[in-house]
């Protein structure tokens, strides 16, 4: 970091002393990124690129101003512009949490750094996987995507904090698409975090085979009949549910100025059975959503959102924590310099229970076993998720495969309807991420165990 961005440190410090503001921060970030995309027989993308930019955020008495830019030579001018703008906002006084200055240099660079590999090395690996996937006449198309990101950042604020970071992320996604007439089925696998090239990228032939077989298997599956079912979902789908359906409601910026939502999301309220625990933890090493300090320079903390079925916490920024008089958690994140920090999740999961996945299935007379997630969406209380593959359960046994299983429901009812928790917690990151307020994709991971939910609506085609 020091070499390239160093020249902006002194000027930033000088600028932050200019005006009498209540709080101000300057972020400067530099990225180098390689992306590779092979789709079917075509190379769509194989490039390395460079990105440099910064932003200023200032709180004056009544409001925030935010300016982002690529031209760092005008840093001082932009800071003044931010200051003028922050002065224009007139409403009741905004208070935020202040903390003691932090001096830190965070490093998340794997020993097996993807940047010690050439573009040729990366390309050859992707090509090999793609060749493996399409080597079957019933596989109509494939997709292999690789991305790495070398990120160097400077964070300085009026509290006197100086936080530098260097990190290297890498990941890959593999897709197999099988087709029989209008019936198109997808097998998908992705990984992405700070664990380095050999762990994340090399030796994934097994996954290529798996997704290929799954897509082919799904071609023969029967379409599901729409209706209400008892559903068992696997750790991946449980993670998507936990993140999408519940996690977003724990983001305090949704709640802090909404008295009605505050009533619904009241600390101490029961949301599910004693075994229900939901946690957000940015401090688990090397996962996609891992960090030490958030984009406001606040130390990241593990937060119990639900403990033993009771709402116990939520995710905060400096502003929401102050307003709600709750503890700072360090969950204000920006995807990059061109956005202001907003309250986000990190690594979010539902904790494990006591049953083995087999016990859950055996205990189910009739229902659907849904695995993997192809997508998910929510609007505060409603969610829809499409599972990657599914099976009918009859008399405690997994029977015929089903396809096109899309789950929908109300999150509060669904949480209450979880009646069995598995003992097999897993967390997954990936190449994608979370989207909120135009900031996408933010690297996050999510997970959970196998769980059983009653009365889930399944929409088919």
């Amino acid at each position: 970091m020091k070499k390239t961005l160093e020249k902006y440190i002194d000027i930033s410090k000088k600028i932050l002393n200019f005006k009498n503001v209540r709080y101000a921060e300057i972020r400067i970030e530099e990225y180098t990124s390689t992306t590779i995309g092979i789709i079917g027989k075509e190379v769509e993308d194989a490039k390395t690129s460079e990105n440099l930019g910064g932003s200023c955020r200032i709180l004056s008495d009544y409001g925030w101003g935010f300016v982002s830019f690529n031209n760092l030579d005008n840093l001082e001018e932009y800071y003044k512009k931010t200051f003028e703008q922050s002065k224009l906002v007139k409403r009741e006084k905004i208070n935020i949490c202040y903390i003691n200055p932090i001096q830190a240099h965070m490093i998340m660079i794997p020993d097996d750094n993807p940047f010690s590999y050439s573009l040729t090395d990366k390309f050859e690996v992707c090509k090999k996987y793609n060749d493996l996937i399409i080597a079957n006449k019933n596989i109509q198309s494939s997709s292999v995507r690789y991305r790495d990101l070398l990120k160097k950042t400077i964070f300085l604020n009026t509290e006197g904090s100086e936080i530098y970071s260097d990190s290297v992320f890498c990941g890959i996604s593999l897709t197999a698409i099988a087709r029989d007439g209008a019936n198109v089925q997808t097998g998908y696998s992705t990984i992405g975090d700070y664990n380095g090239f050999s762990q994340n990228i090399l030796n994934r032939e097994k996954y290529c085979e798996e997704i290929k077989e799954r897509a082919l298997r799904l071609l023969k599956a029967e379409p599901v009949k729409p209706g209400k079912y008892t559903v068992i979902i696997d750790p991946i789908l449980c993670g998507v549910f936990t993140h999408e359906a519940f996690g977003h409601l724990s983001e305090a910026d949704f709640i802090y100025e909404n008295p009605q939502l505050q009533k619904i999301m009241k600390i101490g309220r029961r949301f599910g059975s004693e075994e229900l625990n939901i946690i957000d933890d940015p401090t688990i090493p090397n996962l996609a959503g891992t960090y030490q300090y958030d984009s406001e320079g606040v130390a990241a903390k593990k937060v119990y959102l639900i403990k033993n079925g009771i709402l116990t916490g939520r995710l905060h920024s400096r502003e929401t924590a102050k307003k709600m008089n709750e503890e700072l958690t360090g969950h204000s994140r920006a995807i990059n310099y061109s956005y202001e920090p907003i309250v986000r999740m990190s690594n979010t999961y539902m904790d494990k229970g006591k049953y083995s996945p087999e016990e859950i299935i055996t205990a189910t007379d009739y229902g659907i076993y849904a695995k993997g997630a192809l997508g998910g969406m929510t609007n505060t209380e409603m969610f829809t998720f499409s599972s990657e593959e599914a099976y009918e359960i009859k008399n405690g046994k997994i029977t015929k495969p089903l396809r096109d299983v899309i789950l929908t429901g109300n999150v509060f009812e669904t949480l209450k309807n979880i009646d069995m928790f598995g003992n097999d917690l897993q967390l997954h990151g990936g190449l994608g991420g979370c989207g909120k307020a135009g900031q996408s994709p933010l690297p996050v991971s999510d997970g959970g165990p196998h769980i059983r939910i009653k009365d889930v609506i399944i929409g088919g085609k």
Partner: protein
Amino acid sequence: MANKFNISGISKTLHQECEQFDLYYANSNNESISFENNKLFMFENNYSSGLGLRIFKNGRVGFSFTTNPEKIKQTINYAIASANFGEKLNLELPMKQKIKKNTIKMYDEKIENLDLKQFIEFGNRIIKKLNKYIPNSMVSLSFGKSWGDSILINSNNYKFSEKCSMFDFSVSVVITEKKGILDIYDGLASCALINLDKINVIVDNIIRRYEQAKKIAAIKSEKYPVIFNKFSIGLLYTSFLQAMNGKIYQKGISPLSDKLNKKIVDARFSMYDDPHIDYALGSAIVDAEGIQTYKKPLIEDGVFRNFIFDLRSAKLTGNKSTGNAERSISAMPTPSYSNIVVNTGDKPYNEMIAEIDEGLIVEHTIGAGQSNVLAGDFSVNVSLGYWIKKGKIVGRVKDCMIAGNVYDLFNNKINSISKELFIKSSMRTPAICFNDINIAAK
């Protein structure tokens, strides 16, 4: 802010280093004022600039981009390295030519000079009004202005530069009640400054929409007539738009591959790609590869007429570019639509509703894109939809999913097409009523 990229210097280097190239520079400035939770929240500005390089070397294509003027040399090297793995491709980039500018209006200087401060008062008035008529409402608003310029240069000494501008407004009202959360939103965007009266109309409509959605209507799973209005009809068009995209066609996965000049839907349905509408968001004189744009039918009286192409997808399929290339600095061009225009029908929208004995108007949905969109399948949760009984809206639906296939809908199930044309971002469309759509309710 001044352009710090030495574009003529970069061109010179590229002329020496590779067989062909095109270079796209964009400088964009966005300023916005936002209100959240019923209060003025923030002024936010973004000033970005950068450069994308597409080069052709040893018969292969390579690409890189940067926002850092100090890394130009490296970026050129990255692009050249990229060409080692790039597709074998040889395009006929446009020649140096004189292009008549200003034939289509796309830039309104009033936007650049607009003082966003005036919206503090205006926004507060809107919030007051919405709060008054909608109990327990949480309002978010944003007013934004954008302006900028772009330059396209290629190895044939072709050069085209243009200015653009945009004004946009968005509003969202969230009402949290015991029985559920209701979210109603709308927005407006144009390359010309928008008259404030139009914003007031949107706000009044939100109040009207709330009145209609206040009650929850009980429904049973069944087949019903369903109206898709300007908010939701785009969901159905997506399948057609993907299938008619030259890139999908070139990949051999378009369900319309063998359907050119054949009837694919009901003869009452016509859809155009029209880049020549003054101040429309998708308008352009030339596309992102420098090819002149023109209006073309996509579906005409039910007959499929045109794929859209950029230079690459045209070359690989033995066609000509239709002037539909789009690009940002960070990626190579791809085919994309300009403004989608759908012909209106003969049914007044009010009558369309009045004629329904029992059915649904779909407005907002969640979960689009999770089924096989290219094949025409859709399956979405209706997050805002109004239930019609005996020709009248009686309330909103809850826990309701609709599903179907758009080729089936547009072939066999069109009941009527509205007389009115509605604008939704770069799309101009009537509302359409379909018969017998599957609705799954709790």
